[in-house]
């Protein structure tokens, strides 16, 4: 996609979890080796679509995430392409040891899809919210970590994950996500997408915050601030080249994510910036706290994850840049 200077019109789209479930089912039709493991949340993760069509390749694991991860590892060792799915907080946190010792360490070809990530699951509250999954998954050597922003990128990256030989984590959300990309957009694992050109500051975002970054850039343009917007859909391996270029060309970077700032995308970007072209940075994310029950919109507003917060961070960065 050619970077645009025109205003984006963001239309409502599918939740990324639903785009995952639909793409997974299509993959199941194309590839007999695709199998699915679920822990009593298939209606929520949309793996129920796959289960309905391919019951013999769908393994109900019950509410036992640790076992489920290792079952997936064994299926992968047996030549299958297992997509293992649950709420991100349960799959990653309860299955972390199994992800470490039975998946990452031997490097097996397992695909883990964590849905209901971030705080935008809303009313269910913090016990169900995954705000540390990116940090945890990036700490596992060999894992590819993906965080699609909309249904188009999710569909493409689920296919990319299936084609990749090795462990992959895909982060999905519960709420409907604005459509950012045209249907024919091409995505390459490890390559960021520059959505909007800009010269004064770069907003690097992932997941739901990509749409907020676009809204922020639109508003800033009206004030005469030229903000570049970059979608980092691959958290690991990071697109170091795109980050270094942003640091060099705009000399100010704001990173926005629906994740704890500790261990999130921002600190990973900061490492690249420090190693390549140090510049002013600001961070939009969850600051050392757990959220609460409320509507997704109320929570994103309260915990500082909307375009207003991105704009404020840009202003701070520009003030420091001088």
């Amino acid at each position: 996609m050619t970077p645009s200077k025109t205003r984006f019109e963001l239309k409502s789209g599918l939740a990324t979890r639903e785009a995952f479930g639909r793409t997974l089912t299509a993959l199941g039709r194309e590839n007999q080796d695709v199998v699915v493991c679920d822990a009593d949340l298939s209606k929520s993760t949309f793996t129920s679509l796959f289960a309905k069509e391919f019951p013999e390749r769908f393994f109900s694991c019950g509410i036992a995430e640790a076992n489920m991860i290792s079952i997936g590892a064994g299926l992968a060792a047996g030549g299958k392409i297992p997509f293992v799915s649950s709420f991100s907080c349960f799959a990653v946190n309860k299955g972390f040891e199994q992800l470490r010792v039975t998946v990452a360490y031997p490097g097996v070809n397992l695909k883990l899809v964590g849905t209901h990530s971030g705080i935008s699951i809303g009313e269910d509250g913090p016990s169900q919210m995954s705000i540390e999954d990116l940090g945890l998954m990036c700490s596992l050597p060999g894992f590819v970590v993906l965080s699609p922003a909309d249904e188009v990128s999710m569909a493409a990256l689920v296919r990319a994950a299936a084609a990749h030989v090795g462990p992959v984590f895909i982060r999905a959300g519960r709420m409907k996500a604005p459509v950012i990309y045209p249907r024919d957009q091409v995505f390459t694992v490890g390559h960021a997408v520059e959505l909007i050109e800009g010269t004064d500051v770069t907003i690097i975002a992932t997941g739901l915050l990509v749409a907020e970054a676009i809204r922020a850039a639109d508003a800033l343009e009206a004030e005469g601030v030229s903000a570049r917007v970059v979608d980092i859909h691959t958290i690991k391996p990071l697109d170091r080249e795109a980050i270094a270029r942003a640091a060099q060309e705009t000399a100010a970077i704001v990173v926005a994510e629906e994740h704890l700032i500790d261990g999130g995308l921002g600190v990973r970007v900061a490492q690249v910036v420090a190693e390549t072209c140090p510049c002013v940075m600001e961070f939009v994310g969850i600051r050392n706290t757990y959220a609460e029950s409320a509507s997704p919109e109320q929570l994103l507003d309260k915990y500082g994850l909307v375009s207003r917060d991105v704009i404020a961070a840009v202003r701070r960065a520009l003030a420091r840049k001088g």
Partner: protein
Amino acid sequence: MTSTHNAAGLAAISMRIRREIVEMIGEAKSGHPGGSLSAVEILTTLFFDVMRHDPNNPAWPERDRFILSKGHAAPVLYCMLAQCGYTPKDQLNTLRKLGSIYQGHPDRRFIPALEASTGSLGVGLSVGLGMALAARLNGSPARVYVMLGDGEIQEGQVWEAAMFGAYHKADNIVAIVDYNKIQLDGFVKDIMEVHPLADKWRAFGWHTLEIDGHDIPAVQRALADAAAAKGRPTAIVAHTIKGKGVSFMENNPKFHGTAPSPAEVQAALQELQ
């Protein structure tokens, strides 16, 4: 490798393996002799009699799989692999040393013939069940054997796997518990009692057998019985003696995770004739 159904032949291999286990752990100056020695007859019977595998073709898709879920007993598995011809026998005494393929716990990165990297207790049965399901989907006759420690089954994931195996009718897997009654800190009964073990597996829906794990014909009969059981997985509770074959190691918690001194190695080899 030469396979045999002859119990005396398997006993002779077992004796050789015991000597190698003591020597390699002695040379390494650290490791877990007790739980390696308790598992010898079971692994010998699997690798030299029961399992369908081919050291000349370790990636044969239809091979039977063995997972040592109690990964700290790596020496007994390494001796089997070397004796079968998967790995070099003359490197067994590099155990636990820099650059050795014989890592402290089984590591597939160094020995591709290993079916799983283990060492963190509780995970092996789940991995084995995944392999068993894959074999079933592939229409493969491959069977999966997983050895668990009696202390290991204190891990909750083992029982998640037990529920899963029975629910999914995985009749191509056998879980073998090396019930040697000792774990690192002492006797199992004093750390976290697991008795009645066979009753637990039965309650979870497994076809369950209880045997003397050093009685080779009994091990052979149990594995044949497991192969005949349809519609449910088999658990073999194998009563064994920790440190079996070396008088001063037998039933001695010290030798769960302590290497024998050079003098103890010599004394042990005297007994293992």
